[in-house]
């Protein structure tokens, strides 16, 4: 026998609704049957040690992946990954992807008629350090239109993907920017019922992270599920 700790469950209102018809693509892609509650076993409390050996030193700097510098407003995005007990999550992979400064993705399916930037792919990865901190250097992504509804525009955002220590802690989210007027009209952002939970997806301008005469700094902390204090027998 051995001891396992399960991971705490989410408060429903702090997570997006699954079926949110204002975001049209949810209608044909959301299960209608209730989810079946899965007690955590070894399968859920373990997770891949993925990408730890595959992060190159420059992967976190999206402005240095091509011969020239990308166009746009250079920014630093920094934050700490914690669990819901306040403990840092060290050595976990953080992956990001984003549009360029004009609001265009380096992707064959993106047909928005905004210019491509030959010096910007818009993908990066980093490992958190011993205290759970990560840092990216990139350019501020532009807003872009999408076909969800008449005159629909996504607010500027950066996609984040994190693993954490377990299958149960996997998270994909999006980071937004302070003061973006498009957030109020964005069904992806608005699919989260709780106002405070929405606000936590908005990064904060941070003068301490800002580098003089170089780049604006934004802080974006991320909280993953933590494990229960009381272990059970597996």
């Amino acid at each position, binding site marked *: 026998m*051995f*001891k396992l700790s399960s991971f705490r*469950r*989410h408060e429903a209102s*702090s*997570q*997006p609704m*699954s079926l*949110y018809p204002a975001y049209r*693509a*949810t209608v*044909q*892609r*959301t*299960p209608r*049957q209730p*989810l*079946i*509650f*899965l007690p*955590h*076993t*070894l*399968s859920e*409390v*373990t*997770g*891949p*040690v*993925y990408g730890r050996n*595959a992060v190159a030193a420059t992967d976190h700097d999206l402005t240095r992946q091509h011969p020239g510098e990308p166009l746009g407003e250079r920014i630093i995005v920094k934050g700490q990954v914690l669990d*819901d*007990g306040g403990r840092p999550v060290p050595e976990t992979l953080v992956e*990001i*992807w984003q549009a360029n400064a004009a609001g265009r*993705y380096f*992707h064959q*399916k993106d047909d928005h008629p905004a210019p491509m930037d030959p010096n910007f792919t*818009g*993908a990066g*990865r980093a490992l958190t350090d011993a205290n759970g901190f990560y840092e990216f250097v990139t350019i501020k992504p532009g807003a872009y239109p999408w076909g969800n509804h008449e005159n629909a525009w996504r607010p500027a955002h950066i*996609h984040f*993907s994190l693993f954490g*220590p377990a*299958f149960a802690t*996997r*998270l*994909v*989210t999006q980071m937004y920017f302070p003061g973006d007027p498009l957030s109020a009209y964005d069904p*992806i952002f608005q699919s*989260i019922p709780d106002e*405070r*939970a*929405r606000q*936590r*997806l908005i990064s904060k301008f941070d003068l301490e992270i800002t580098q003089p005469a170089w780049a604006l700094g934004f802080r974006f902390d991320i*909280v*993953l599920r933590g494990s229960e204090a009381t272990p059970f*027998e*597996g």
Partner: protein
Amino acid sequence: MDLTPTASQTVGPYFHLGCTNNHAVSCIAGPDAKGERVRLICRVLDGDGVRVDDAMIEIWQADSEGNYNTPTDAQGKGSDPDCAGFGRMATDANGKCFFETIKPGRVPGIKGRSQAPHFNVSVFARGILKRLTTRIYFADDPANQECPILALVPEERRATLLARPDRGNPGDWFFEVHLCGKDETVFFDV
């Protein structure tokens, strides 16, 4: 600081850029891994039965003896170094993706009842605001009858969690994810 877990958001249609263009993993267990070779073929369909060509599937599995390749496997038995246990692929124009792996062993379950061999599965896509999680079991595996997790699933829906062998291609197993609709796959609250 507020320590409520960060809200999930969809991967959107362009996740390939960050996740699978350069960092897809189709080989979950290499050729030297112990166990029965499996080629797992997954297909994702939406509520209209239309193939989903912009989904990402991730797999997490045990080695042939039921050990996970990670320091957090508390069994303390170690694991097969040739079975990394993790895979992730984007679906193609037909809504399909493929993994090269081995059949996982039985993993301890609840109160001493071991689980039947299974893959732990995450499904991400445009239109999916929160990761969907399901499991893939092997059709006709006698261990399925004893699995404490399968027992939680209403009997009439258990078949949605079964991969089917391709009789013409030994080792090939086929699994369909129906996001919704009449054949909707069982998804779990993990």
